[in-house]
Structure formats: structure tokens, C-alpha cells
């Protein structure tokens, strides 16, 4: 990505401003005992097996999450990619058990760092998992800050609620996290309206990080932000992942942004994962026909390739087809697509939900 522009000779002497150098340097983590990176990188952090989340509506049952299984390792960033209405936001609700009232069916086995958290009672889950071990940045969360409470207090709130820390102690920690996400410490005393969108987004990120969770779920964290601010936030996330060893699940519909953080990409379609591959394979050599089409539809800035649109529309989550859910739009549709395939394991640690990759299909 070397697009160093031809600049005027006078200016080319100037060192290009290292923007990161502007950011404050970070104090070493003081509370080492509860570090997110305490487990060895590479060991399994989260395993989700056969998760379902269905809603009851007046028009029928919406199968928003319909049999999702995946696994992620410590210090990994998993991107859950999907178009609107594919159930990706419901997946975050299922993971954090922040369920709406009209749940029709909710099941699945979730194992976090060896502990089966799906077995915990609601109260235990609230006390030991939500926000203390898995935290979240919700969609448009920056607009959900309480306008009449100082940002610092809001960021410190999870510590006071979950850890029962004193005001001073949690404030110190909040200052630390502010540092981490690149917010000046004096912003602690400001009100949300005094912060720009990017700054608020950083504050929301700080709120998610303040309890030093094992896993942070980010639901479209940058979709409402400008290009440059977005890039800055992504830089912060990369740095936190690199330096703190935090694991991320990034939920997004934006293919280009997703590549900024992904170690692994899980593509959702109509409530299911259709492909789950390491990033280097996903972005360069997608397996599933839907992935191929989706990648081909992404306009690219630096290549003169006409992007192509995917004909048709995803099925309604109210009336899902019997067979493969992508079959209607799929160019490699054949007779077996009348049945819904399982997620098949492929070489290179890849998985795809398509009949093209069953063992027989591959052997022939």
C-alpha cells in the first residue's frame, strides 16, 4: 500500500507526521493479575456451538440466529461479516444474553476460556460474564451516552457496578483506559456533547475496555464515522489488540473495514455462517459462492475492475427456504442444493457451508 504521493520537493524533506507519535504513550498495565492476555495466545477462548435465537413477531417467528457454531482463539480478532438483516446483531445479543422480550427460542452452548457460560444462571452471567469478561460496543453507542453525566463517570461505571470499586479507584482506571484509547485525561470531566463523534466513540470503547475483559464485541463501531476518524479508531483497536492481547469480535457489513482488524472472518447469510476462514484466505481466495460474489461486488479504489452486483435478495428470516439458503442466487446451484448443507471443514483451517465442499465432491 505504498501510495506515497509525489509531493513538492520542498515538502518531501519534511518527515511525514507519524500520527501515532501524537498519541500518548501508554502506562504499563498496573493490574497485571487480571490481564486479558494472561492465557497463552493460541489457546481457544470462545467456542459457540449450535446457537439459536428466534423471535416471535406478529407475522411469525424470525429465525435471526439459526444454528451458529464457531470458535475463536485468544488474542484473535474474528470479524462477523454480513449484510443487513442477516442476524449479525442478534448474534451479539445471544452472546451477551441481552435478549428482547419476544424471544421464541434461545439455545446453544457457549464456552468461554474453558467455562461453559451458557450453563450459568442469569444472575451469575450478569455478575461474572457480562461486561467483566465479555464487553461490548453497541451500534451507534456513541449516541447512547447519557448527556447529563460526565464521560469519565460513565466510563468508570462498569467498575463501580461490577467490581464494586471506589469512586477514586475506578476513576484512576478510567484515566488509564482513556490514555489507552487516545483520549486526553481532562476529557474525563467533560460531558458527551462537548466531544466530537470520534472522541465519543473512543469513550465508548474505553467503557468496554475498562473492566479489562477477555473479549470485546464491536457492533459496527465505525459505521457512523468519517473516513479519517474511522481509520484512527481502527488504529486504536489494532494497537489494543497488539499490546493488551484483547480478543475482538467485530460485527460489520463493510468488507473493506473488516480487513483492517480481521484474523479470521465468518460470513453470515440468513441466520447462518456460510464461510469461516482465516483472513488471508478469505480476502484473497474466498471459497463459498456467496463470498466470491460478495467480494466481487466490493468496489475497489486501486484496481480498475468493474464490481458486480449479486442478483436477487436474501430470503426473509420469517420464511427460510428448506434447502441451501443461498441457492436461489447461487451461480453454482445444482440438485443437491435442495437440502441445506452443513458447515464443511476444508484444508487450511477453513469452513464453508456448501455442497461443493463435501468430501465426495472434493474427491471426484
Amino acid at each position, binding site marked *: 500500500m505504498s501510495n506515497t504521493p509525489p509531493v513538492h520537493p520542498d515538502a518531501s524533506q519534511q518527515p511525514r507526521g507519524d500520527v501515532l507519535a501524537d498519541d500518548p504513550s501508554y502506562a504499563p498495565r498496573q493490574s497485571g493479575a487480571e490481564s486479558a492476555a494472561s492465557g497463552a495466545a493460541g489457546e481457544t477462548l470462545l467456542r459457540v456451538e449450535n446457537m439459536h435465537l428466534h*423471535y*416471535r*413477531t*406478529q407475522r411469525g417467528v424470525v429465525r435471526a440466529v439459526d444454528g451458529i457454531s464457531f470458535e475463536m482463539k485468544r488474542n484473535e480478532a474474528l470479524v462477523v461479516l454480513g449484510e443487513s438483516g442477516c442476524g449479525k446483531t442478534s448474534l451479539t445479543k445471544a452472546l451477551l444474553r441481552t435478549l*428482547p*422480550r*419476544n424471544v421464541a427460542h434461545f439455545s446453544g452452548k457457549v464456552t468461554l476460556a474453558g467455562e461453559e457460560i451458557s450453563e450459568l444462571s442469569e444472575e451469575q452471567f450478569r455478575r461474572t460474564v457480562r461486561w467483566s469478561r465479555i464487553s461490548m460496543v453497541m451500534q451507534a453507542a456513541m449516541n447512547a451516552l447519557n448527556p447529563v453525566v460526565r464521560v469519565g463517570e460513565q466510563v468508570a461505571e462498569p467498575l463501580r457496578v461490577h467490581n464494586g470499586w471506589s469512586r477514586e479507584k475506578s476513576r484512576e482506571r478510567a484515566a488509564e483506559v482513556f490514555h489507552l484509547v487516545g483520549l486526553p485525561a481532562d476529557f474525563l470531566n467533560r460531558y458527551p456533547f462537548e466531544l466530537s463523534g470520534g472522541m465519543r466513540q473512543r469513550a465508548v470503547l474505553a467503557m468496554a475496555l475498562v473492566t479489562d475483559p477477555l473479549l470485546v464485541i464491536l457492533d459496527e463501531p465505525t459505521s457512523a464515522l468519517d473516513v479519517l476518524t474511522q481509520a484512527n479508531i481502527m488504529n486504536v483497536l489494532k494497537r489494543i489488540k497488539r499490546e493488551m492481547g484483547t480478543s475482538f469480535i467485530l460485527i460489520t457489513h463493510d468488507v473493506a473495514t473488516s480487513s483492517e482488524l480481521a484474523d479470521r472472518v465468518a460470513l453470515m447469510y440468513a441466520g447462518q455462517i456460510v464461510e469461516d476462514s482465516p483472513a488471508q484466505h478469505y480476502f484473497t481466495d474466498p471459497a463459498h459462492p456467496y463470498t466470491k460474489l460478495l467480494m466481487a461486488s466490493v468496489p475497489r479504489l486501486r484496481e480498475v475492475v468493474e464490481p458486480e452486483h449479486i442478483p436477487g435478495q436474501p430470503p426473509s428470516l420469517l420464511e427460510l427456504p428448506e434447502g441451501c439458503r443461498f441457492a436461489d442466487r447461487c451461480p453454482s446451484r445444482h440438485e443437491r442444493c435442495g437440502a441445506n448443507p452443513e458447515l464443511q471443514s476444508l484444508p487450511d483451517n477453513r469452513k464453508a457451508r456448501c455442497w461443493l465442499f463435501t468430501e465426495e465432491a472434493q474427491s471426484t
Partner: protein
Amino acid sequence: MSRWREGFKQVRNYPSAILGLALIAFLFGLAAYTVVFLSFEEAELHWRGQEAVRQNPINAWPAWINAFGYDLPETMVLTSEEDATVERDGSELRIEFEFDYTYSDFPSEMALFLEAEFDERLPYARMRWHTPAGEVFPLGSRSVGAYERVSITQDSHLERFFYGKYPHVGLLSDPRHQNQAEILSDDVIPALGEIVAWVADDEQQVVTERLGEQFVLTEEEAQWVFEEVRALLAQGVDEQERLAAALQRRADELRATAEVLPGTYRIEILVDLMHTEEDAADVRATFVSYGLVHGVAGTDHMRRDLSVALMWGTPVALAFGLLAAVGTTITTLIIAAIGVWFGGIIDATIQRITEVNIILPLLPILVMIGTLYSTSIWLMLGVVILLGIFSASIKMYRAMLLPIRESPYIEAARAYGAGNFRIVFRYMIPRVLPVLIPSFVTLIPTYVFLEASLAVLGLGDPTLPTWGKLLHDAQEHGALEFGHYYWVLAPTVMLMLTGLGFAMFGFALDRIFNPRLRRI
């Protein structure tokens, strides 16, 4: 519009909405029926009372009360044309009413209406009452003018004869108690010493025979006298004076007792027409035995049938509620939309007027106008709408319309050149109508109650029979003190049904059309 159709289809999912709709349908049905089948002239005439209601009882309960184990008499009207035998012999006219009286309760009142046609001299009538026991009581005699009301109930001679009982009670009573009272006071008490001695010493058989001979009593009566005296003696009342006092009390008690003697009664009216030629004179008679129950709603202190007011109250209440609700909500919305769209001084003026108006109390102003100027319902309606337009809801609509003003579709409309009024009426107002409709529906009963409260305070339109007027009359005539609960209950129930029906329907609509309240 499909949004409306979809919304109203959802009504089926809300039982409360269906019940509310049923109530509203009932009220509108009743209103339509009233307007079609009970002309306002008729109702107004009835409500003026007097002659139109002369055959109605006073303060009668609704007839359906008998379904709850009562046997209260209904009003009975007999006319000489249809229910009487009329014989004419020269100038002698004889009218005879014959009727069965089988209720266990007495009527509230009885009266004879006599109408005469004559050339010169007034016909003269004598009236007599025949009981099933064969007794005959004179009901007086009088000259008959064009129209006479002969109130049997107010006949003072008869009243004295029945020891202060109402004559219509006395006439229908079983005479046995009267007899027994007379036996006690005329026969037994004067000869008390003797009788006590007999009762104390001898066999019952002997004593009753002796009593029968001595006082000319039937066997049954003698038996009764024996038992009365023996019961007193058994209670240890043996002193002569105390015994006499006790018997006297018993006699008074019996005199006051009135029990209907069921059977066939006759009223005989003998008229001397004072004219010998046919056609020169005639007398028609109507006998009315006023019941204790009347119609579906009972009557008030002026014999007026409450159902007239209940029925005519429905269209009046609905019309007032609807007109006031339409008048306020639509104009309020339009004014709010105009203020929001044009902004600036127009908006500021509307806001200030609203703020002043919110402070003004509606009810006291209406009371003031009612007492000082006029209580016409149209004036009240006008004032209600006028003060209702710049109400707090203007602020609510403004809050709803402000974001709509900035919405992209309005910008698009401006971009293709839609004018100001098109934007206000075609793009802004329809957007908030779904939220408006439920509040409009729930607003209707508010105005119905307002109109009723004015009437209760005595500021109702004097010419209209309304629910509020009924409550006002009931309150004024102590309906609750005297146990005329039906008088208060009927209009209250109508008001409550109105409130309930519109409220249940309106709140369900609110849940349907207001996305924030939608049940998922």
C-alpha cells in the same frame, strides 16, 4: 390507504379494542335509533312533563327490577272506549271498569280521568268501587267538566275511613285485618275480664262457641280471638290493664296492615248527562292504576320517562364529544403544522398564545359563561373548541412535527417545487395522523364528560334532555337519600360505557399506530 387498512386489521388482535368497538357501535346504534324513531319534538314535549306524562307514575323503578325476584305492579290504564262496559239509557250513562289485581304490592297511586262533552250543563258523575269481597266504596260524585282528574289517592273521606291509609291502598286491601282490628277494639277489649276467665278455665271448643254466640263471630274469627288472648296470657300478661293495652296495640297494628286482596275489582261510574238527546253529551273515563315500575328506565319526580333522556342524551353526548374532539384536534394539528413549517414569528405567536391558554382553566370559564350569559349547548361547544385549539397538545404535535419538517422526504418535496401549503397539508399532517387518531378517539369521552359535568352543575342546555341533566335532577331531588338509585345509575352507566368504549378502542389504536407502544 394500506397503512390504515393494516392498522385496523390489527384491531382484531386486541380484545379490548373489539369490546370498545362494540360499545361504540351500541352507542351509535342507539343514537341513530333515537334520532330516527323518537323525534326531537316528541322528546321535548315529553320532557316538558305535565299533560304528556300524566299517565306515568312518579319515581317508578325500571320494569326489569321484577326480574330480580320483586313483584312490583306495573301501570294499568283502562279506558272507557276499550276496557269498559258502557251502557246508555237516555241521559243515564253507566261505565263499568272490571279488572283483575294480582300483584302482591299496591300501586303507587290511582286516578280517574273524566272528559265530558256537553252543550250547556255539566254532566254529573257518581263513582263506586266494588271489591272482590263484595264491599262497595263510594268514590265521590262531581260535575264533569271538559277534563277532570279524580285522584282516588287524594280522596280525604276514604283516607279517614281507612284510618289514614292511602285510599288506593285501603281499596285494594284485604278487609280481614280491618275486621280483626274492629273485633278486638269493639268486642274483646270491652268484655276482656269475661273472656280472660273463659280462656283460662275452659276448653278451646267451648270458648270459641261461646265467643261466637256472644259477639256474632264466625268460627274462624272466634278461633283467632281465642288464640290471640291465650298467646298473651302464655307470655305472662295477665293483668287486665296491660292486657287491654296490648290488645289495643294489636288492633292498631292490624289497622295499619295492608295486604292486597287479589281478585276482580270493579269501578262503576254512573253519569247523569243532563242532556236527553244522543250526541249532545258524552263522558269518557280513563282509570289509571300507577305502578311502581315503568319502562326500561323508570321515571323521575315529574313522571317523565328517564329513557327519553337516556336515549336523547346519546346523540347529544356523541355529537358534542365528536364535534369538540374533531374541532380541537384537527385545528390544533393544522395550527401546529403551520407554526412548525413557517417558524419564526408565526411559530412564536402560536407558542405564546398556547402558553397563555394553557394557564386558563376551562371549566371555570364555562361555568362563568353559563351563569352570566347563556347555557346553550352550541355556545358551550364553541367555547370548548376555541379554548381547546391552543391546548397543550399543540406542544405535543409541535414536538412530533419538528423532526418531520427536517425529514428528507420534505426536502425532496421542496426540491421538486412543492409549495408551502402542499407541504403542510400533504406531507406533514398525514405523517402524524396515525398518532393523532388514537388520541382523538380517547378525547371524545373527555368532552362528553365535560358536557355532563356542566349539566350536573346546572348549566346544561335547558331544552335538551341529557345524561348530565338526569344526574342534576337526581341530585337535586335527593335520589340517593330516597333510594331512587336507578335515577343516578342509568345516566352514570351510559357515561361510563361511553368512556370505556372510546378509551378501550383508543388505547388499542394507540398501541397499533404508535410504534413505541407496539406489542411485539
